[in-house]
């Protein structure tokens, strides 16, 4: 079963890293540097999990997460927020993320979160 991962991350270096991490295991990674319309991307890729970096050009990861969680159709898609800042900085904002990882993260931890959180069966 195909597992789709939508990633928005402005460090282009990370595209290869993610692809390497999720190589095999039926994972498909959709990598974007930034987006103005996360819903459009969700419509387009129907991911089983969304990984958002916090610091982005344009809308930041937190704002994107809010949009996902506010959307009736996509609100159940798990969101993993990544940031080089520690978690407590974002605690007040309550954007509704499902998991948080501080950069630099542990590859294994990331794989575990995705493995457990990803929504199955959203294949085209």
């Amino acid at each position, binding site marked *: 079963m195909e597992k789709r991962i939508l990633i928005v991350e402005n460090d282009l270096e990370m595209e290869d*890293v993610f692809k390497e991490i999720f190589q095999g295991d039926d994972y498909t990674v959709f990598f974007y540097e930034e987006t103005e319309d996360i819903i459009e991307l969700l419509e387009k890729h129907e991911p089983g999990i969304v990984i958002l970096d916090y610091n982005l050009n344009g809308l930041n990861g937190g704002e994107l997460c809010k949009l996902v969680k506010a959307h009736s159709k996509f609100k159940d898609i798990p969101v993993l927020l990544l940031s080089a800042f520690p978690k*407590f900085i974002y605690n007040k904002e309550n954007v509704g993320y499902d998991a948080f990882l501080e950069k630099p993260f542990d590859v*294994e931890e990331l794989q575990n979160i995705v493995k457990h959180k990803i929504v199955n069966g959203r294949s085209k």
Partner: protein
Amino acid sequence: MDAQNDFLFKYFLEKSLYGLVLKRQGPSFSIYAVSNEYLYITGTAEENLIGKDILDLPEGIFPFFIRELLHKVTASKTETDVQPFVFRAQHQSENICISARISPVLNEAAEVVFLIYSIKHVDQTICTEGDQSNRDYFIQMIDQAPVGIGVLRGKEMIVESANQILLELWGKTKSILNLPMKVALPELEGQSFLRLLEDVYTWGEAMVGNESKAYLMRQGRLEPAYFNFAYQPLSNNKGETTGIMIIATDVTPLVAIKQRLEESVANFRNLVMTTHYALLVLKSKDWIVEIANQSLFDLWGRQKEEVLGLPLMKIMPELQGQSFQEHLSKVYQTGLSYGPDEEIFFYNTSSGIGKKYVSFFYDPMLDTEGNVYGVIVGAEDITARVENRQKTERAEEMLRIAIESANLGTWHYDPQSKRLTVSPRLKELFGYKLGEEMTYDTVIAQVTDEYRSIVQRAIQSSVLKGESFNLEFSIKGYYDQKLRWMRATGRIYRDKENIPVRFSGILIDITEHKQDEIRKNDFIAMVSHELKTPLTSLKAYVQLLGSKARQNKDEAAVNSLSKAEGQVNKMNNMIRSFLDLSRLEAGKINLEKQVFPLDELIEEIIEEVTLTDKSHNISISECASIEVDADREKIGQVINNLIGNAIKYSPQGKIVEIRCLLIDQRVQVSVRDEGLGIPKEDLAMLFDRFYRVESRKLKTISGFGIGLYLSSEIIKRHNGQIWVESEEGKGSTFYFSLPAKEPV
């Protein structure tokens, strides 16, 4: 009238009962004819009287008081009777009682030419009756006299009479009349008066007393009184003393006044001599010192002998040219008082010129014509006071300059009246116009939301607990709403009863500094963030390679990559601590409290640490199951830091021992190592920012000295304490304590 008739007339007269015929002779009268009776009574021969002017006759022949009456009759030309009177005639041993009549004889021109002075020997009783009326009159007079008068009779001193005043003076009533003195005034027993009276009686000599003190029973009380008195002996015809007349006045009030006067004079003298004010009385145009007290000698630095009786300018020639000379002259000229509050007074001393500050008054002494005959000079040495004031003024001036040049605002707050007083600069800082009132409430409202309760709490604990007030906070301008950063420091001032009376301090505008700091913190945050970005991919690659090497069983690669990952983690930790610091300093560390078991957190951390460090023996030796209400992640950070330090600063194979205890409702966590230990001189500053112990041994150990600072800040924000015990060469034990969660 012819000569024969004249003879007959005279003869008739001689035989008749009439006394004398007086012929007018100028202003006086001469005796024209004398009756035999008159010659008999007076025992005189006719030839000694006929033709004699009455003014030449002695009292015993012609009573002096009759002379006066003759003139009255001459003037009134009416017959006049003279009341019976006692006549002690010449050559007679006994008094006789006679009555008399004076009759004028007029000529054709109605002028008095003769007076007929006829006398009649009357019964003795008539004269006595006169005595009686005189006596009544006398008694009446005594009663009305403004002095106490009384008569004592006989050797027993029986109070025969006493006027009201004397009775009052004795404090007695009429009931004592006819009682002996001893019985009437028994309180006199033992006092000198009874004996005095006896002496007067015995010797017949009058006695007087002045302001004599007597104790008298008045209104039931024995009280002292002062009298002026006279004891006058009364004697009978034979000159024997039969009684004593007492005349007395009560001078008690007078004596009291006199005593008070004497006392007040003495007091005044004492006052003058002992007062700490220097007093001086100058007399005459030469300003001669008549009176001066010790304080004045001290003020002048002169001895008594150098001052008294000498002219002022001789005593103190240095006064020449000083203001005092002028003041004195003016008071002498104008007769008006003068009193300068503060004058500088220069005087000669053995070691040079002395300088004193003095407050003066000059009061003229005026004679009855209003001329100044002297001056009273009072002076107070206020040198110490003036110098103190000048010192205070200088200090205040310096403080004012300091405050103004530092652009500091100052404030005073009275916790009782809730009144706030501020300096103009402070008003400016808060964005008020100069004349506008600032109140405690408007000030608090201007503090931004995030700091308002912090400021209020700090003020409260300052006022209530006396903690010093030292706080940075942001405010919004009263009109412009512009954000400004302030730093306020202050403390509470208490009165003698320990009641807080004033809460005051200073305020500094730290906006610029704060903005710099914000920029710096933002910069650090940005740098850390940017540094972490390449580290993220680096770590991921190292880990991916690592797992591949493990799959390929390439032990050498696994080993190297594990070390590489360790270095990445170390670097990440350093960057992270910078980020933490910047967040902390920006005041952006918020505690996310939750109730959790502290022992579980400790176990988790030890487990985690043991995964990466297998070279030390890390163990919990004792830990009770204790719940705390705290920020789990941050407390974890602290424990991590303490264990990390223990590992970092102790040789491999050593023990790191963790304990947690519940002591007085506080959880106390300790991390003990057997490491290098910390030199004594470094212990105090160990928790300061960027502080690292300088030592050759430590040169190889990395770190920025942020960890303990962060830990202590986190613990402080939890109302906890952090401290260390250490001995160089033996190891250290770090402690922190937190309030335990209160049992529900």
